[in-house]
């Protein structure tokens, strides 16, 4: 679909996204630039970007991808190493990282989709990818066992700052961009095709959809966004190592996506940000006595959603709207 058509048809959603971005940008003022809260909020919005990206492969295309940190880690480490070793600015490095993540996605996705690996097999394979990269980068020739630090250079040039508000704003902007990308996909032919694939691959194929091609496209778009954000993840973590290929958090991203509701951009955002804030809170208060408590909570929420609201937060929203707004569904379209 052309850009003009997209803008005119999705005006409401585009404006909504921009307004959300504007409001988020004001938050630092509301919390008096408190460093601790800004760090948590930056992390939460970063997870917002991850889960919104996951929505492309998991929500639209319906592939239960558990490899988020394979792409985040690889993209981030590429940008970090380019910066540390060759002094390349992260503004270039992040794009290189995104490119490398997309190449990895293509290398994994092509044979996977070619041989029709899906459902639980796809999930397991993608989960294994994170573990494999974790092991590969543990090799002494690569990152070894040590933590690596970014050079102590600060400023917009390096996206590193002594305080967190600038990073927070940068993440806010990328979140808005990621949401707009999703919105564009959702309203375009690609979005229709991916949803059809999610619903029924065989029926989609019989309607002329090149299922493999579209799945690969979705995987690469997801990997590209994650690879781009990898450097930000490292900046927030402070260091990078083979641990950057983080399995539990890769699964967390998928869980957040499912709780948000497959294919819902607002659901992905809401679920990621609230769950991450709750998770960080629990970790800082109970983390010492009950390690992994946040993962337990995510798991429980997932089960509750699975039992009562398989459509996730987005589904809750739709039922609330149906209940309280006596309006026919058709009226809201145009």
């Amino acid at each position, binding site marked *: 679909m052309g850009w003009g058509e997209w803008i005119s048809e999705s005006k409401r959603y585009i404006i909504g996204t921009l307004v959300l971005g504007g409001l988020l940008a004001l938050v630092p003022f509301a919390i008096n630039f408190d460093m601790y809260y800004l760090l948590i909020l930056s992390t939460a919005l970063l997870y917002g970007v991850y889960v919104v990206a996951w929505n492309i492969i998991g929500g639209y295309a319906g592939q239960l991808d558990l490899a988020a940190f394979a792409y985040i880690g690889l993209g981030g480490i590429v940008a970090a190493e380019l910066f540390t070793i060759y002094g390349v600015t992260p503004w270039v490095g992040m794009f290189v990282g995104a490119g490398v993540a997309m190449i990895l996605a293509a290398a994994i996705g092509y044979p996977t989709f070619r041989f029709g690996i899906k459902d639980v097999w796809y999930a397991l394979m993608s989960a294994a990818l994170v573990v494999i990269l974790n092991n590969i980068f543990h090799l002494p020739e690569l990152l070894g066992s040590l933590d690596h630090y970014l050079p102590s250079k600060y400023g917009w040039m390096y996206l590193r700052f002594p305080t967190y508000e600038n990073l927070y704003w940068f993440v806010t902007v990328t979140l808005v961009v990621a949401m707009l990308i999703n919105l564009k996909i959702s309203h375009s032919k690609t979005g*229709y095709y991916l*949803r*059809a694939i999610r*619903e*029924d691959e065989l029926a989609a*194929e*019989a*309607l002329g*959809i090149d299922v493999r091609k579209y799945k690969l496209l979705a995987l690469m778009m997801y990997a590209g966004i994650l690879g781009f954000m990898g450097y930000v993840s490292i900046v927030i973590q402070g260091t990078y190592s083979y641990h950057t290929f983080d399995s539990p958090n890769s699964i967390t991203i998928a869980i957040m996506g499912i709780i948000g509701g497959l294919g819902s951009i607002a659901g992905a955002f809401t679920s990621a940000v609230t769950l991450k804030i709750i998770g960080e809170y629990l970790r800082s208060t109970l983390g010492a006595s009950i390690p992994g408590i946040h993962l337990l909570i995510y798991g429980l929420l997932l089960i509750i959603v699975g039992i009562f609201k398989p*459509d996730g937060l987005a589904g809750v929203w739709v039922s609330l709207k149906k209940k309280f707004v006596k309006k026919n569904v058709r009226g809201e379209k145009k």
Partner: protein
Amino acid sequence: MSSGKAVLEVNGVVKRFGGIIAVNKVSFKVYEGEILGLIGPNGAGKTTLFNCITGVYTPEEGHVVFLGQEITGLQPHIIAQKGILRTWQKVRPFKKMTVLDTVTVGALLRIKSVRKAREKAAEILRFIGMPEEKFDVLGREITLIEHKLVDLARALATGPKLLLLDEVAAGLRPHEMEELANVLRKINKEKGLTMIVVEHVMRFVMGLSNRLIVMHEGQKIAEGKPEEIANDPRVIEAYLGTKPL
């Protein structure tokens, strides 16, 4: 009809499942603009034959030629892009998509603009008699019969050259069946769309088809005009399981 040009040629197609020969050396032609009925008792191999034509299965022997081009063993989406569309005996709905979105997926095969594809989808839905208030209902919330119509609509929306219908009328009430038959006749007349119709309901398929093929235990056992078929002893035997006198 046989004077027209062949849209589809099936030559000696064989498909086995383990020990069962589901389709056994079946050959026939479909001519431009005709409605070919395909009948046969349960397990005769009709659906498997459709699957061989549409690329869901690759035939173990034989050839499928569409508009003079060999399509045997091509991938399903390529066959669909060439213009062979089908509906499914066991419905395969897009449960979490609305009726209109589902049909739009079909329309997007030939129409680039999503807006125009949605308009086309709406037009097709109206044409096949789907009530407007169903357009925004999710696939999982409609009835089986509506599924059949949506399935037909999304195939039609692609602008097919050959349409394979696998028991679209099954489960319809008599008057609904008559409406559907009228719609199919209209599509056939106005759009010149060639069709193969698999159906157990004899009245439906006899009234609709220009010509019929009968399958039994994987083989084609008869071919001809509806009235010839109705009186063919082999067909009667296949259906009733008794030897004709």
